[in-house]
């Protein structure tokens, strides 16, 4: 019987990374009370604060793995892991630079032109240049290869027409990397797609809010109406868009943000249960902590594999699947135990608000960055089922 191998070799973050953790903690303790953020009592990687990102950039902690010539610090992927998890664990408003640091910068580093790298990367590492993701469209969600936005070659560049949706932060950010069709026909699937760098102030690019069910304005609709994009903004080779976008998705799935976006709920649960909860409440709290610890062990193991030069796509998909479902379970389990075991009525009322807000945001976790169903398709392929 061929046993599918699911191993997450336990991995210790190296001492250097642990030393960096101490520095990041000290910095956050000092900086967090001073920065402005856009919204949210409890911050995460979707809470924008250009203020905060600039301070982080000054420390050299954005694009930390990138070459020094582009403003990076040439540190390891594991150093980056520690910085990102400390931002999440300390509820930092890290939303402004998150996407640029996680995937747009690495994409430009890997596929971009020298001109693009020099123009953009130092501004990202300084915490002054923010990115949005231009993948989904009204008719292309999980089926990304069906994008219709068209970039027609014209002298000196492209004329772009089409619509991108769920474009988080486009109203605040500077650029978006759009997946567009540069040749062939709709229906050609993976062929003829390219990625272009779009300055969001370009004439012909219109940004309209899409408000989510919680009343928040994160998302936007970005329409291109005969927008002219210079040839110098093509990323990589014309027609290589699909290959590039899939490599970008690997960055998008494997991080701790997939199980720590609502870490504040667990923190607040500890607060509301008080210092000496009943055994039943302790047990439920402890089980939630144990699950989070496991997710972190898995995620660190994946980071270790990536540092070792492997590309653990299936493992990353498993972590995101488990992690996002944990984030959906957390506020619901917490809500029920808080109702019976909170120490004071005031604390409880406040906590129930927090938990309800978290529950309201929770459907997004299993949709963004690859739905549960897309992830399970990837895992099923890994199991040899398709």
């Amino acid at each position, binding site marked *: 019987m061929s046993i*599918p191998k699911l191993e997450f070799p336990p991995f210790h973050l190296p001492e250097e990374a642990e030393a960096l953790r101490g520095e990041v903690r000290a910095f956050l303790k000092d900086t967090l009370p001073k920065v402005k953020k856009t919204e949210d009592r409890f911050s995460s990687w979707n809470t924008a604060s250009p203020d905060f990102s600039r301070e982080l950039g000054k420390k050299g902690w954005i694009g930390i793995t990138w070459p020094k010539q582009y403003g990076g610090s040439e540190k390891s992927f594991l150093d980056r892991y520690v910085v990102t998890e400390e931002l999440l664990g300390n509820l930092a408003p890290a939303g402004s630079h998150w996407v640029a640091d996680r995937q747009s910068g690495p994409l430009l580093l890997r596929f971009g032109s020298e001109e693009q790298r020099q123009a953009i990367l130092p501004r990202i590492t300084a915490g002054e240049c923010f990115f949005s993701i231009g993948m989904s469209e009204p008719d292309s969600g999980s089926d990304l290869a069906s994008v219709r936005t068209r970039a027609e070659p014209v002298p000196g560049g492209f004329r772009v027409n089409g619509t991108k949706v769920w474009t988080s932060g486009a109203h605040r950010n500077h650029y978006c990397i759009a997946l567009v069709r540069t040749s062939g026909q709709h229906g050609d699937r993976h062929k003829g797609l390219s990625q272009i760098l779009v300055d969001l102030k370009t004439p012909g690019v219109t940004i309209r809010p899409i408000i989510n069910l919680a009343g928040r304005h994160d998302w936007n609709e970005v329409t291109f109406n005969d927008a002219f994009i210079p040839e110098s903004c093509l990323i990589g080779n014309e027609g290589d868009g699909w290959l590039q976008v899939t490599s970008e998705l690997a960055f998008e799935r494997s991080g701790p943000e997939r199980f720590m976006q609502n870490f504040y709920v667990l923190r607040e649960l*500890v607060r509301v249960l008080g210092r000496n909860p009943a055994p*039943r409440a302790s047990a439920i709290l*402890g089980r939630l902590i*144990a699950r989070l610890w496991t997710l972190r062990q898995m995620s660190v193991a994946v980071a270790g594999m990536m540092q070792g030069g492997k590309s653990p796509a299936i493992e990353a998909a498993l972590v995101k699947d488990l992690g996002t479902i944990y984030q959906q379970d957390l506020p619901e389990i917490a809500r029920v135990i808080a109702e019976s075991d909170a120490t004071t009525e005031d604390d409880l009322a406040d906590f129930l608000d927090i938990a309800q807000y978290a529950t309201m945001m929770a459907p997004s976790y299993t949709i963004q960055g690859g739905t549960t169903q897309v992830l399970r398709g990837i895992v099923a392929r890994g199991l040899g*089922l398709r």
Partner: protein
Amino acid sequence: MDRDTRDMLLETADRFFTERCGREVVNSVEKGIWPADLWKEIEEMGLPLIAVDETKGGVGGTLADMLALLRLAGSHAVPVPLAETALANLLVGAAGGQPATGPSTIALGPLSLAGNRLSGKVERVPFASVAERFVTVVNGTLAVVARTNAKISDAPSHAGEPYGAVSFENAVCEFTGTSAANAERALELAALVRAMQMAGAADKVLATATEYSKQRVQFGKPISTFQAIQHMLAELASHVAATIASAEAAARDADEGGVPAGGSFSIAAAKSQCSDFAQKIAAISHQSMGAMGFTHEHILHHYTRRLWVWRRDFGSESFWGAKIGAAFAKAGPDGLWPALTASKYAA
């Protein structure tokens, strides 16, 4: 032992378990038949002495070596007390005693020791009905009591293994010594052993369900081609992965501290995690295999029933969860994140 030696030992053991721990053997143990030959061969291979010093006739492996072997044993539903005896021998050796031959088991619970006399009762002692001796730790003292000096009342587990309640009434110990692991630590090590066995069993469940889905034809094609089944098995895989990852992380942390201490929090978290997901793993695998997997004929239940029993052994998710939760609540919200990243109880 070095990596190559361990891999070789595991390979040999894997072949041996495959050959000798088939369905019939596991089923006959459930009927109360002790597989004396199987046990004898396991002893001849030195497996129960894997983590005992060579000076005492053991194999000289570490705690990590033993745990790797027991994960493998879990993936074969080895129906003899290899896990219990290996741990008992490790503890006896580390307390300055000489491990004896024959199956042993671990009896941890509300026992008291006066001189070399042991008293008290422990419920649900694994393999109590077949063990030749009972090993326990009371506070900091390890004690070994021969079966003849204990009163055993059989209570087979729901997996059909010969569990039972064991009473000691001023029982004479054949050995007492200062234990390298105190009573609390002994319980942690036992819980870790179970977590590793659960990792092995979970792995086998996934392999079994996956393989079955490729063979089973309905509506004219293998059910593995149906997206509903693919997604169920992918979900199963995520729970199995969490089980394996947590147990292995705890095994590493425990081994770094050795027998006396180390990885306390990781063990608690891993046993809570493994116990927590046992039901999901059993439920999804059974659903994916339909009525076939629910029969006694099929081997799936050798693993799912063990997962259900093992999740309760040496502390369930409620037990370990309460321990974790109490410590983290006491430390307050600011203690949560630093403790989590250090894999330590919050303080």
